[in-house]
């Protein structure tokens, strides 16, 4: 066998062997952490919803409705963001939109900073008192255009949906 071929083969074997070991190692770490990671993510989602509604609510009880209690109605919408589907929850109190939160998303870290309650998304509820988008005159947030547009679309959809959900809640 020519020397060059032997060298290439050796390189391929070493790299391939290393890949197999690395893959095995990652599979083991994943097996050891997957359940805990899922629990942590679930707890984080719950915390977002609790902060918004003051209640311990589960996602999607009846279609879009995740909570209806004492004049509070929370609707969960699914919108397509930059990294795929994201859950957007909008809470209404006595017919007024009080807040919008994103408990679950796969947006790029860093660009998703606008979804933190203290950031841009925190100001979405108070500004829009009515049933239309009005109030917050925003088309998108620079640097996170697709993410912010998805949130705004979901908010508009939730406002539309509220008309059906509110009577169902009062029943």
């Amino acid at each position, binding site marked *: 066998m020519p020397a060059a071929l032997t060298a290439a083969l*050796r*390189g391929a074997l070493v*790299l391939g062997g*290393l890949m197999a070991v690395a893959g095995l190692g*990652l599979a083991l770490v994943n097996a050891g*952490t997957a359940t805990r*990671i899922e629990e942590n993510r679930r*707890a984080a989602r719950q915390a977002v919803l609790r902060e918004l509604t003051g209640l311990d609510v589960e996602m999607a009880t009846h279609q879009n409705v995740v909570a209806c209690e004492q004049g509070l109605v929370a609707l969960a919408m699914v919108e397509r963001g930059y990294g795929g589907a994201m859950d957007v929850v909008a809470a209404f109190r006595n017919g007024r939109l009080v807040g919008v939160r994103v408990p679950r998303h796969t947006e790029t870290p860093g660009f998703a900073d606008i979804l933190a309650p203290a950031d841009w998304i925190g100001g979405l509820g108070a500004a829009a008192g009515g049933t239309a988008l009005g109030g917050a005159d925003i088309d998108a947030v620079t640097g996170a255009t697709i993410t912010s547009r998805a949130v705004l679309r979901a908010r508009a959809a939730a406002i539309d949906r509220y008309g059906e959900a509110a009577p169902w809640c009062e029943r």
Partner: protein
Amino acid sequence: MVRTLKLVKAAAVERNAAWAQGLGLCPLFAVTTSIENAAALAAASGVVLVGAAAAVAALRSLVPADVRLPCFVLIIATLTASVTMLAEAFAFDVYTRVALFLQLVVTNCMILGRMEQFASRNPVPRATLDALGTALGFAFALLALGAVREALAGAVPLAALAPGGFIVAGLLLALGRAATARTRREPRRARPGGGASSTRPGSQASA
């Protein structure tokens, strides 16, 4: 023992990856808005650096020269992915704050640089000690910047933002240069234009 200390000190102080070589500055500015974030990134980088150095040194006679870089990157990436998963499982609060930069540890040129320059040419104990020193030096750089920025952020909000990071880092760097220049008693040469760029070897800046 003395040699061991010298090796660690050389890696941590004289060849400090961040201050002396200008490597790994991207996470340095992005994450050091508080001491806690800085410590988390320093710990993650340290674990990856030491683990990769030990692995690279152990495999150095086995890995052919022409595939060494893919092998280094594979080792570093595996360790980074493992650290990321472990952090999300056991330190979720910190993870949510530094997740992006935890994943970017893999692209930290400081780590690949140490593999190529040192770990792939030295036995495991020496490579590990060098990595430990480099990690300590990087941690010191992160923590110093984090501490100053966190202290300033109350009075000067700019300090918490990226531009503030550059300014604080520049000031710390100048301070460090001034301190080491005095101890080394370098003859002061008047440079035309008083150039801001350094003439020291190995001071190339990189993200």
